[in-house]
């Protein structure tokens, strides 16, 4: 096993390869509620630099925070988790990845208005605000939420 020498450290997270024209900004923050605002502020600056307008920046901030909230709820607080921002000329990508125990995607459906719940809104909100969203979750590999928004 190649990775065994790294055993003392948190397992290295491999993000997808970066293509030409993409710039990456990586963050690693504790899975603790008080640090989520750091990710939100970073998202706001990067989206602004790409040229997104105020409303789009607000959408990106909410979507990114929801993904982080999801990690914070499902991870142990002593662990860090990773966020990669992919900045392109007319597009932002954000990948939020943890080493938690995953969650059951089947639990996440559209909100039931007759019986509003405070659970499961996050993923639904991300999918509503971003142009493309991929969620992969498993007990073995944790959860990865990838989201993209294009500049109109």
């Amino acid at each position, binding site marked *: 096993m190649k990775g065994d020498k790294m055993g003392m450290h948190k397992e290295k997270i491999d993000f997808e390869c970066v293509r030409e024209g993409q710039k990456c900004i990586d963050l690693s923050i504790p899975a603790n*509620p*008080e640090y*989520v*605002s750091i990710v*939100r502020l970073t998202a706001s600056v990067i989206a602004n630099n790409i040229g997104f307008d105020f*409303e789009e920046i*607000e*959408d990106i*901030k*909410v979507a990114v*925070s*929801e993904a*982080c*909230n999801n990690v*914070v*709820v499902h991870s142990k607080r002593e662990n860090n988790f990773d966020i990669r921002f992919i900045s392109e000329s007319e597009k932002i990508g954000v990948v939020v990845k943890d080493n938690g125990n995953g969650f059951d995607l089947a639990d996440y459906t559209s*909100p039931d*208005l007759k019986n*509003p*719940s*405070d*659970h499961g*809104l*996050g993923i*639904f*909100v991300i999918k*509503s*605000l971003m142009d493309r969203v991929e969620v992969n979750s498993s007990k073995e590999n944790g959860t990865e939420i990838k989201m993209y928004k294009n500049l109109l």
Partner: protein
Amino acid sequence: MSLSIEKQYHQDKDLWTVKITGEVDIYTSDEMKETLNEMVEEKKSEIQIDCRELSYIDSSGLGVLIGILKKLKEENKNLVVVNARSNILKLLSITGLDKVFIVKENQNEG
């Protein structure tokens, strides 16, 4: 990032007014939950939340509001959101919560 909450009970209207200033996220939502719960325990009256100075809220904050509404509904009372900014109105609309809470625009203070 900070959050401040000003609450006031109006006896003549049997109404709570709350002014939320700042950001409600997964970190600060507990503070909002505590304040709103205290209010509901003191008096289960309609709550009107002035969001003019609320710059950010996400599902953790909306979840708190849903929890409070459930308690208010036991007494057939409502939760009213007033003066929400466009980004927050959008979130309420996406989640369908604009039909669960009463959402009013352009309300004067008091």
